[in-house]
């Protein structure tokens, strides 16, 4: 069974402006990951704005698997303020349930970061605590789904 590895997480604002993007690979392919995140934003927009065509429930937060490319699985999550969370993983056996749980915790960390009165909404999240929490969550995600 392959190791569950999250390679990238991103938070994108409602005008598709990046608020937080962090890659967890050792290699230098962060640009490629940014590109993947950017492409998946289109899928998110399509799911959010055209519910009738794709037949999904309109206001669920977890959007599920967005587009399975050759090596990566991309999951999306839409909060009620139209802020999007994108998760890119190399593990081909990541289950939906794990991704949902991860996004739940990620949402909590995001809310804590945004509740900071010194954080300006619309600007990048610069909190170190948020970055640390995200790193911890990413590490524990790998362990729980690999076992």
């Amino acid at each position, binding site marked *: 069974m392959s190791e569950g590895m999250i390679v990238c997480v991103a938070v994108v604002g409602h005008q598709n402006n990046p608020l937080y993007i962090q890659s967890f690979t050792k290699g230098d392919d962060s640009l490629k990951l940014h590109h993947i995140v950017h492409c998946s934003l289109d899928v998110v927009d399509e799911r959010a704005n055209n519910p009738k065509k794709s037949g999904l429930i309109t*206001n669920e937060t977890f959007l599920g698997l967005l587009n399975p490319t050759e090596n990566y699985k991309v999951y999306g999550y839409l909060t*009620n*303020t139209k*802020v999007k969370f994108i998760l890119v993983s190399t593990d081909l056996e990541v289950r939906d349930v794990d991704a949902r749980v991860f996004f739940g915790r990620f949402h909590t960390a*995001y*809310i804590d970061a945004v*509740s900071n009165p010194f954080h300006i909404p619309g600007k990048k999240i610069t909190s170190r605590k948020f970055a640390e929490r995200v790193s911890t969550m990413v590490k524990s995600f790998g362990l729980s789904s690999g076992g």
Partner: protein
Amino acid sequence: MPGKLKSKWIGPYTIVGIRTNGAVEIQGSAPNFVPFLVNGHRVKVYRDNSELTEVTIDSTSKLNEDLLQVSLSAFAFLFSELVQYNQIQVDNIAELERRLEDAGYAVGARVLELLCHREKGNRRETRLLGILSFIHSTVWKVLFGKVADSLEKGTEHEDEYMISEKELLVNRFISIPKDMGAFNCGAFVAGIVRGVLDNAGFPAVVTAHFVPVDGHHRPRTTILIKFAEEVLQREARLG
């Protein structure tokens, strides 16, 4: 009542001072004149018809586990400081209202994110009535401890809705001097509502007004919400 049915609260006491760390100085009625300090979490507001802020102490000193609550007196103190701080920086009432509203807007944006995550259903509201009833019940309950008194649709204009409150919490300890006329500290709450609506995708202009009520000498506060054109068009499209 004896035993376990006995009320765990003693009081009422009168607040004579507030400390910055959340402790309150309270004093019983005569003959004990010496005020003593108590943790702000252990007191709750005593509601009767008098104007003073009276509190009762929880003698079992059990903290409220699930939701952290801010003591009313600490909030009233902070809010009055906020208003005074802005007051010395501006020359006119309109500017003061705008500043309070901006402060409220920041709160509203964060409250929306937080509440939707806490709610079990966690669905994004896309309908106008949905978001309005969310504000009227959930937001009001979390911020002020009760649902708003009423939610009405305006009769003259299609795009106006009103949330009314007999005694807005932020206005409770504030009296407006006569020369400030129509100024309403509810502008802070109007800002909160606007923050929630704007970030949920329903842009609107929100203002707070005093509405005199027959039979009561204190006027009711109404939050007037006027939605932007695009919201009504979208609502009509959704059917």
